[in-house]
Every structure is written in structure tokens, then in C-alpha cells.
């Protein structure tokens, strides 16, 4: 680490300056993050401070635009006027004193030799009538290859073929070779060009269609230097042991093929400025300080074709441009990765730890996922420029200068569950970027930052929730839920702990009576942010879809647990199934001692001592000033309170631990614009208007017996009405369907009834107009079997029954618009086990009449009173029979047995 800092301290210093003073008022304006020994900008003086060679200071009498580099044994200055001035007095300092240098302008033909003064300075007049490339080196002597009879100086070092315009070396060379004509081939034939650490090995400026091949070039500032060229082929060369192996500065339509660049002190291949359409095949870049530096994009140069046959330190180079929806998974070790104009990409499960300027470079790349990558020992781990809405998670950024760099308006990128470790300038460097997000809501939270994981760094975790209590704030962003441990998110939190975290999220927000955090239209438990901004819910008190902000007390418990358990599961299939505090108390919790309280446990209250729980609050563990989250009221909101105060209140009932409620023992569900009326075998009936009077809570239930829910949305947009019970009773359930007022008769409904693991489909797409008058019936037997029946309305037409009577008892089964009594099979009918009496002629004593004058024929029959299997205490008589279609019908009526003994 210290070594790395030492190695890069100059760069660190300049980055501090760049990020602190992007528009430093006195100096030239810095517009780009530069490699070592490089400065670029506009102004009148320029100061290189981090060169491994000479830290050159340039002062101009006129404002100029400059890019100045000081790499070993060579100074390069690109200079142009930004005013009307045609020349400027240039003063350079920082050279070795009293030393002779060779200054070239534009190419090696224009030499000016100079000797610095005792201060290492030199001044000259610079022409500014046009842009110039000036390079200053310690050594002169150049071979110029031209298109003439001898190939210029070619014949002094090789063979010139004037037909093919090829100069083929026949010996090693110790000078710079400058190509001075178009369409020339410089073939090294394996010979060596050796420099003394300064100048350029092969220099091409302003030429087209030149080929440089088969040369081994060593110990130059730049092995091969292409400047303002077009269509150059660089093939089969070795450019090693200098400062830069191959430099394109700028160069269009270049082919780099099967070249090797090794052990260069700066870059293996260096491509910047307006250098479009670079093709790279089979190049080997290794052991350079940075193997491939490719930054043409800020200059509008794209169209590169670089495939994975290129390697950096033996690892493949990935370059993707204009791709949509591709996935890059399990790539192993990657050399460097560029994604330019990409959309909806996936980068997953690979590492980039070669020493790149940028390991993963995203330019104008949006809506992509970066997951589980490791980026180490680069200048910048992942660089975002003009790149929005990408998600980075599960990744590690380690030993980089900056783990992440966000620039050029990149916005709305999300970072969570990443480890930022030992990045020695900044974990995240942000410059001219938009707003980005560095955490999700709890329980997911943010990232791990090794510079913010101890109390001395501002990270305390008093509630042991795994997050620092304070946000990690850095220049340009903040992580509101920094993890205290590396990979802390992999340590699975218990469900109660997650619920407690979520509950704490709502401290200070709104109370919403009837709000449970379940969005009616989205079919999910919403995020904390949505709780705070508003969602849609079915409000049973006004029986319509409502919208609001917040939750109520039982909603806090349901939302916190169910959101943590599975936000997409409907409440009735989720962890906390009961909407009200009373149901949660009875069926979703178990007793816990105060001494064993854990975050996520709850406190129940019965304010008016009517044995209905009115209120619930969640214990969340010790926080700064509170340990209970209490969704209290509209006026007071959701507040943090003290357990020790709440437990002393007269209405406090008990501490309880939240447990998963058992699936409903019975469940009636209808998906349609209808309500339900359900009667259980014991005669308990719940209707759409059944409300239990309770302080605070809206309880749509018969406590402990039947519960009514309308939270979910059916496919037709109407609420799913559900009646459920935790208790399975043996006997007959009846379910009546009540259409919502104003519903068209042609609208259909469906009805499903479940008991245990058995389900019966009672109605499927049935028109509202055909709702059975007496509803549907289901018999649950002791074996668990369920059978449907048709409930019928009957009337035992005797005010009282004397079981010793020798007479008969008349009974009516009423017909209706949906029940035709002619469908009854009279031979199957029994009232209290008594068959229909036979007449003397052997016929059944039955008739069909409109008894109640409702326009529908009723079925009248008689049974022998003595045959009624009723006790003296009986209060009702049950009827059972079948239709001719074999469907079972059932009904019952109250009876009074006389005389009583």
C-alpha cells in the first residue's frame, strides 16, 4: 500500500487538485485526467508535476492550447493558438542545467539544437500560425525513408525496392527512422533498432498507407510513433523496453497486428485523441506499467475492432461497441474490458487485475448489470462516462487508485453490496457526474468501505444491525447504509432482524389507517421509499381503492415481515397473514419473555380491556433514544418510543414473537365484483360489513373464527374477496355471493373453496344473474374430504313438533329463480333421517305448489312425525337429498319439540 502510494504519489496529488479545483483560476484549465507526466489544457502556463522524467514548466506569452508530455528522455508538446496571436514567446524550465537538447517541430527535418542555462531553462519563439507538434530529446540523428531512387537513407541501412516502395533492413540500426512518403513499407526483417532511451524508434507523421513490419525496437521514448496518419499497418514488430511501445497520437484507420510490447515504463499501446477505426489482432502487451491505454472516445473517435486475440499480461482484451442485451459471464481473468455505446448488458463473474488505466470502461453504456466482478490494481476500476442506470453489485474494488470513476454526467447508477478496499485515492471518484445511488433500502443496504468501518472512522453500530449508524459521505455521494463488515450482506439476517430494520426505516413517516404496505395494483409489498411517497390500497372502511402514505400499527408488522419474507407473495400466502393486530396476536405470534426480546418482536395492547387487541408496536432493539417503532396516529405519525414506558401502560398485554401463521384451514376465494357471506358449521357468519369495534384497529373479522380480506386485486381489477379461518370445522359451510351494487348481470364471477389440502371449484365464470339464491354449500367430513352441495331453503311447517304424534309433519323446499324443485329426486329426501311418507297407494306424499307466492314452484312433502330422528332438545331439523342429477341438496329449519319431559 505504502509502496503503491509512493509509486503514484504524484498522480494522487494531481488528482486531488483536479477533483478539488476543476477550474483553478490561475492555472490552465484541466479538462482531462492525464497519464503520468502529462498535462493538457488552455492558458499561459503549464506545469507537469508527476513525471518520472523531468517536471517541465512551460510559460507562454500568449494563451495557447497545449498537451505536454514528459516521458523518459523526451518532451512532447502539442501546441496551438487560441487567440489571434501568430507566435508566442515560450519559456521552458525543468531541464538539466547546461545540457544540450534537440528540438524538433512536426518531424525530424526541423531540428533546433539548444543548450539550457544554469537553471535548466530555455526560451524560444514558437510559431502559432498553425498547430505544431514539438518534441525535445537528448539525441539527434535520423534516417529518412523517402520515395526516391534510394529510398532516401534506406540504402545506408538496407535494401530499397523502388517498385514495391519497400525498405528492408540488412543491419541493426541505432537511429530514429522517419517515414517521409506515403505507401512505403518499412520491413525490419528481424533487425533491431536500438535507442538510448530518448526519441522515437520509427516515426510517421502525416502519411498514408505505410506499413511497418518485422522490426524489433528497443529503448526509445516511443517505439513506433504515428502522428496524424491514415491507414497505417503495424505488423509483427516488437517495441520493448522504452517508455511507450506503440503510440497513436492521433492516427486513423490503423491496423495493429501481431505486435509485442513489453516492459515499457509507461504504456504498451497508447491510443488517444481522434484515432478512429483502430483494428487490433493478436497483439501481446505485457509487463508494461499499463498495457493498453485507449482513450479516443472523448475525442469522438470510435469504430474500433479489437478482439480477444489481443492480450494484456496474457489475459484477453474485450472491446464491445454498439451492442444490446449481451451477457459476459464467467470470463475468468480478463485483461481489460471496453463497452462503448452498450445497452442492457451483463458483466458477471470475472476479474480484471492487470494494471490498466481503466479496467472496465463504460462509455455511453446504460441499463446494464455489473455483478460479482473483482477489479484490482488498476488506476480506475470501473469508469462510467455518459453512462446511466447501471447496477453494480457483489463486486470488489481493491488496490485501485479509485475503485469507481463517475464522469461526464453519468447518473442514476446504483451501487450496493460491493467491497471497496484499499483504494488509495478514493473509493469512488466523481467528477462532473449526475446523482448516483450508493445504497438500496434496508435490509439490502449499501456497500462495505474499509475506510469507514470503525468507530474512529465514524462508523458505530449500536443496534448491531450490520450497518454503520451514520451514512458514509464522500465527495459527490453518500451511502446511507454502509456495511460494517466486508461481504456483510452474505451473512443472512434472521427474518425478525430484517423486519426490525424495515420498521426503523419508517420512523418519522406517516401513519395510514388501513395501510398495510401492499400495493393493490402492483400486487406486492412496496419498498420503504414507496411507503413514504404513496401507494394504492384497498380501504375496507370506505370499501374502495384508496391511496396514501404510511402504514397503520398492524400494517407495520405485516409489511415489515412480509416484505422481508417475500414481497411478491400475497398477504394470505405470506409470513404474517393476519391484517389486524388481533389476528396477529391470536395466530401469528407466540409468547416471549421480555428478557428474551429480540429485534422484530412485538408488543400488544388492549386499550379498553374488551379482549380484542387494539394495537401492536415493534421492538427494534436499542437505538439512539428509542427501542420500539410505534405507528401511532395521524397527528403523531410513526414514532420511536421506549419499551419501558409502553410496557407500563394499563392496556399492555404481552410481548410476543412473530411466527408464521399456519395456512388457512378453510379459505373461500372469489375473483369478481362480488362479496362473500360465509357461515361455518357452528353458525358463525361473516359478511362484508362485519366489523369488530376496537380502539385504533379496523377489524374485519370474527376473532379467532372467521376473517375477511379484500387486499388483493383480481384479474378483472376487482378486489379478491377472501374469507378464511385458522380452524377447520367438521360440517357444512355455506357461502353466499352478493354482487357489488351496480354490477351488470352479465358480469361473471368465480368461487373456490379450500379446506386443508382439498379444493373445490364451486363456480367458474358464472354470470351474476345466476347467483344461487341460497349460495353454495361445502361439507367437510371427519376424513378431511370436502363435497359441495346445493343449499336449499326449507320450512318445517309446524310451530311445534310432538315426537309421539301419530301424524305427519309437512315440509316445504322453496324453489327460486336459480333452483327448480322439479329437479329434486323425492325418493332421496330425508328430514332428520325420516323419508317422505308413502300414501296408501304407495305414492309419495308430495306436491308442487307456489307456497310463498314468489312466482316459483315449491316442493311440499310430508314425513311421519314419529320417524323424525330428533331429540327433545333439538332446535333444528336438517334435510338432505339429491337432485335427479345426483347433486346433493341440504337445508335446515328451526324446530320446537314438545312436550318436553
Amino acid at each position: 500500500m505504502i509502496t503503491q502510494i509512493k509509486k503514484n504519489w504524484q498522480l494522487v496529488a494531481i488528482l486531488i487538485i483536479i477533483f478539488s479545483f476543476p477550474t483553478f483560476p490561475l492555472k490552465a484549465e484541466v479538462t482531462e485526467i492525464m497519464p503520468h507526466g502529462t498535462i493538457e489544457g488552455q492558458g499561459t502556463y503549464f506545469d507537469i508535476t508527476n513525471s518520472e522524467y523531468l517536471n517541465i514548466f512551460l510559460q507562454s506569452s500568449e494563451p495557447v492550447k497545449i498537451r505536454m508530455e514528459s516521458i523518459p528522455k523526451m518532451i512532447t508538446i502539442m501546441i496551438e493558438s487560441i487567440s489571434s496571436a501568430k507566435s508566442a514567446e515560450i519559456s521552458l524550465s525543468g531541464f538539466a542545467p547546461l545540457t544540450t537538447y534537440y528540438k524538433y517541430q512536426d518531424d525530424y527535418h526541423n531540428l533546433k539544437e539548444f543548450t539550457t542555462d544554469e537553471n535548466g531553462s530555455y526560451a524560444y519563439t514558437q510559431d502559432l500560425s498553425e498547430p505544431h507538434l514539438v518534441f525535445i530529446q537528448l539525441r539527434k540523428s535520423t534516417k529518412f525513408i523517402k520515395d526516391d531512387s534510394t529510398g532516401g537513407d534506406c540504402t545506408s541501412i538496407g535494401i530499397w525496392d523502388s517498385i514495391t516502395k519497400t525498405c528492408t533492413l540488412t543491419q541493426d540500426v541505432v537511429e530514429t527512422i522517419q517515414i517521409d512518403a506515403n505507401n512505403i513499407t518499412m520491413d525490419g526483417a528481424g533487425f533491431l533498432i536500438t535507442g538510448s532511451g530518448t526519441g522515437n524508434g520509427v516515426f510517421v507523421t502525416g502519411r498514408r498507407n505505410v506499413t511497418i513490419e518485422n522490426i524489433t525496437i528497443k529503448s526509445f521514448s516511443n517505439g513506433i510513433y504515428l502522428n496524424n496518419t491514415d491507414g497505417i499497418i503495424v505488423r509483427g514488430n516488437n517495441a520493448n523496453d522504452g517508455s511507450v511501445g506503440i503510440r497513436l497520437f492521433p492516427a486513423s484507420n490503423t491496423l495493429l497486428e501481431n505486435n509485442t510490447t513489453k516492459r515499457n515504463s509507461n504504456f504498451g499501446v497508447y491510443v488517444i485523441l481522434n484515432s478512429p477505426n483502430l483494428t487490433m489482432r493478436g497483439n501481446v502487451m505485457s509487463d508494461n506499467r499499463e498495457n493498453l491505454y485507449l482513450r479516443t472516445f472523448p475525442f469522438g473517435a470510435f469504430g474500433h475492432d479489437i478482439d480477444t486475440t489481443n492480450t494484456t499480461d496474457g489475459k484477453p482484451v474485450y472491446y464491445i461497441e454498439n451492442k444490446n442485451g449481451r451477457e459476459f459471464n464467467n470470463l475468468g481473468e480478463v485483461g481489460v474490458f471496453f463497452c462503448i455505446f452498450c445497452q442492457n448488458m451483463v458483466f458477471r463473474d470475472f476479474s480484471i487485475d492487470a494494471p490498466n488505466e481503466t479496467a472496465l470502461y463504460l462509455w455511453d453504456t446504460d441499463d446494464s448489470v455489473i455483478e460479482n466482478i473483482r477489479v484490482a490494481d488498476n488506476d480506475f476500476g470501473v469508469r462510467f462516462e455518459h453512462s446511466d442506470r447501471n447496477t453494480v453489485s457483489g463486486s470488489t474494488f481493491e488496490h485501485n487508485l479509485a475503485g469507481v470513476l463517475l464522469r461526464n454526467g453519468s447518473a442514476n447508477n446504483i451501487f450496493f453490496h460491493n467491497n471497496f478496499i484499499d483504494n488509495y485515492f478514493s473509493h469512488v471518484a466523481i467528477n462532473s457526474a449526475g446523482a448516483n445511488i450508493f445504497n438500496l433500502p434496508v435490509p439490502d443496504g449499501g456497500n462495505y468501505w474499509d475506510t469507514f468501518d470503525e468507530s474512529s472512522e465514524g462508523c458505530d453500530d449500536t443496534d448491531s444491525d450490520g450497518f454503520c449508524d451514520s451514512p458514509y459521505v464522500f465527495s459527490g455521494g453518500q451511502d446511507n447504509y454502509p456495511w460494517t463488515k466486508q461481504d456483510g450482506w452474505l451473512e443472512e439476517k434472521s427474518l425478525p432482524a430484517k423486519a426490525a430494520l424495515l420498521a426503523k426505516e419508517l420512523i418519522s413517516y406517516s401513519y395510514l389507517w388501513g395501510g398495510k404496505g401492499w400495493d393493490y395494483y402492483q400486487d406486492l409489498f412496496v419498498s420503504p421509499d414507496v411507503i413514504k411517497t404513496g401507494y394504492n390500497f384497498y380501504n375496507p372502511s370506505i370499501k374502495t381503492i384508496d391511496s396514501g402514505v404510511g402504514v397503520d400499527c398492524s400494517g407495520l408488522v405485516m409489511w415489515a415481515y412480509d416484505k422481508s419474507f417475500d414481497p411478491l407473495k400475497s398477504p394470505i400466502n405470506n409470513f404474517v397473514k393476519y391484517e389486524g393486530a388481533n389476528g396477529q396476536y391470536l395466530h401469528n405470534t407466540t409468547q416471549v419473555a421480555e428478557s428474551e426480546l429480540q429485534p422484530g418482536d412485538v408488543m400488544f395492547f388492549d386499550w379498553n380491556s374488551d379482549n380484542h387487541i387494539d394495537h401492536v408496536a415493534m421492538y427494534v432493539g436499542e437505538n439512539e433514544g428509542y427501542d420500539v417503532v410505534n405507528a401511532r396516529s395521524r397527528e403523531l405519525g410513526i414514532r420511536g418510543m421506549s419499551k419501558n414506558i409502553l410496557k407500563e401502560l394499563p392496556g399492555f398485554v404481552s410481548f410476543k414473537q412473530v411466527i408464521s401463521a399456519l395456512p388457512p384451514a378453510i379459505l373461500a376465494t372469489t375473483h369478481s365484483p362480488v362479496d362473500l357471506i360465509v357461515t361455518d358449521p357452528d353458525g358463525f357468519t361473516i359478511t362484508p360489513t362485519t366489523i369488530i369495534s376496537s380502539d385504533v384497529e379496523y377489524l374485519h373479522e370474527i376473532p379467532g373464527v372467521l376473517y375477511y380480506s379484500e387486499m388483493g386485486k383480481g384479474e378483472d381489477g376487482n378486489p379478491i374477496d377472501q374469507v378464511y379461518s385458522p380452524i377447520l370445522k367438521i360440517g357444512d359451510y355455506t357461502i353466499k355471493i352478493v354482487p357489488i351494487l351496480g354490477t351488470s348481470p352479465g358480469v361473471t364471477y368465480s368461487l373456490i373453496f379450500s379446506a386443508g389440502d382439498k379444493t373445490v371449484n364451486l363456480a367458474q365464470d358464472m354470470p351474476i344473474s345466476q347467483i344461487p339464491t341460497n349460495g353454495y354449500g361445502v361439507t367437510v367430513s371427519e376424513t378431511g374430504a370436502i363435497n359441495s352441495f346445493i343449499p336449499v331453503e326449507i320450512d318445517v311447517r309446524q310451530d311445534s313438533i310432538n315426537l309421539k304424534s301419530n301424524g305427519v309433519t309437512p315440509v316445504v323446499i322453496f324453489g327460486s329463480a336459480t333452483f327448480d324443485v322439479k329437479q329434486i329426486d323425492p325418493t332421496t329426501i330425508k328430514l332428520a333421517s325420516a323419508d317422505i311418507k308413502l300414501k296408501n297407494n304407495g305414492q309419495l306424499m308430495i306436491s308442487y305448489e307456489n307456497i310463498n307466492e314468489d312466482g316459483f314452484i315449491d316442493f311440499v312433502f310430508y314425513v311421519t312425525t314419529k320417524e323424525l330422528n330428533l331429540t327433545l332438545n333439538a332446535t333444528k331439523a336438517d334435510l338432505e337429498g339429491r337432485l335427479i342429477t345426483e347433486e346433493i341438496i341440504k337445508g335446515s329449519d328451526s324446530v320446537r319439540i314438545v312436550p318436553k319431559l
Partner: protein
Amino acid sequence: MKFLYKKIFYLIIGIIVISTGVYIYYKLPNNQPYIPPPITTPTNTPTSTPNNTEIKTYRNTEFGFEFQYPEDWVIRTNTSYSPFSKFDLISAPSEKSYLIYYPTPPFLINIVTPDFAERQFFDLKNIASNTTVGDVAGLKYEYEEQNLSHITIILPFGQYKIILGTTKEYEEVFNQILASLKFLQ
């Protein structure tokens, strides 16, 4: 060159000092443990009401208001934590002092950020009526919720809003308290 290094060194030191100062200024207050504002001790001003019930005066010098309330009522301030609430006061008859911790106490004052008041009562805007308390015009809401009849008044209060609340059961005392409420600033 030494001069340039020195410049960079001083520049870095300057940045660190300024950044630390800015950090402390903006950040530190948010990291402080929650400390309730000082509770203003009620000043005992024995006075007789028309029905001879003794009254006390509560004066809050920090927020600048005072009101009179029955002597046999208890007052608690800042008993719970909420960042949006700058100050809260809850009160109940002493024989039912536990009511101050119930979801809706017999009397409450909650000084809140305007956005809290807005989102909590937005859906009731159609039932709001104009009212004046202590010469300050505000809105009054009467509504059924949590199986209780609520009366809530919201007044502007400098950069905040002040919520005054009760339930129908305590409306008479509530009105007496409001009649005595004075804003001192």
C-alpha cells in the same frame, strides 16, 4: 521545483482543513444522539375558572407559546422520537395519565415540518374548515378514524406547522385550552 512541491503540500493541507471544517459543520449535528429539547417547566399560576377548577399555565420559551390547562392534567413533552417532529407535548387527566401514551392522547401539540402535516392531512382537505387559535388562522379537521372522533387543528408556526389535537371525548377541555393559547412571538 521545491517551491512547487511546497505549494502542493500547502494546497493539500488547506483542502483537508477546509473539508474537515465543512464536514463538521454540516455532518456532526446529524450524528448526535437524539437529545430532546429542554422541557419548559410549567409555571404554576393559580387561577380560578368560572366553574372554580384550578388551572395552570404552561409556557414554552423555546418555541414561544403558552396555554392554560386544568390543574389535574399532566403534561409530558418529547416522550417519543421522530425527526420530523421538532417538539411534542401530550397531556391527559392525571387519573388517566396513561392516555398520553395512547395512539391519540386527550390533548397534543406536535410541532412538525410542513411536509409532514401536508401528507398526513392531504386526504382530509375536503373536510377542513377555517379556524383561528391565538389570533393565528388555520384549518380544523373533524374526522372518524381508529374508531375515534378526532379533532385536529393545524396552524402555521414559523417555518413549521403546529398540530393541535384531541378526541371528541375531550373536546370541551380542548376548546378551553385553545382559548387560552397565546403565541409569544
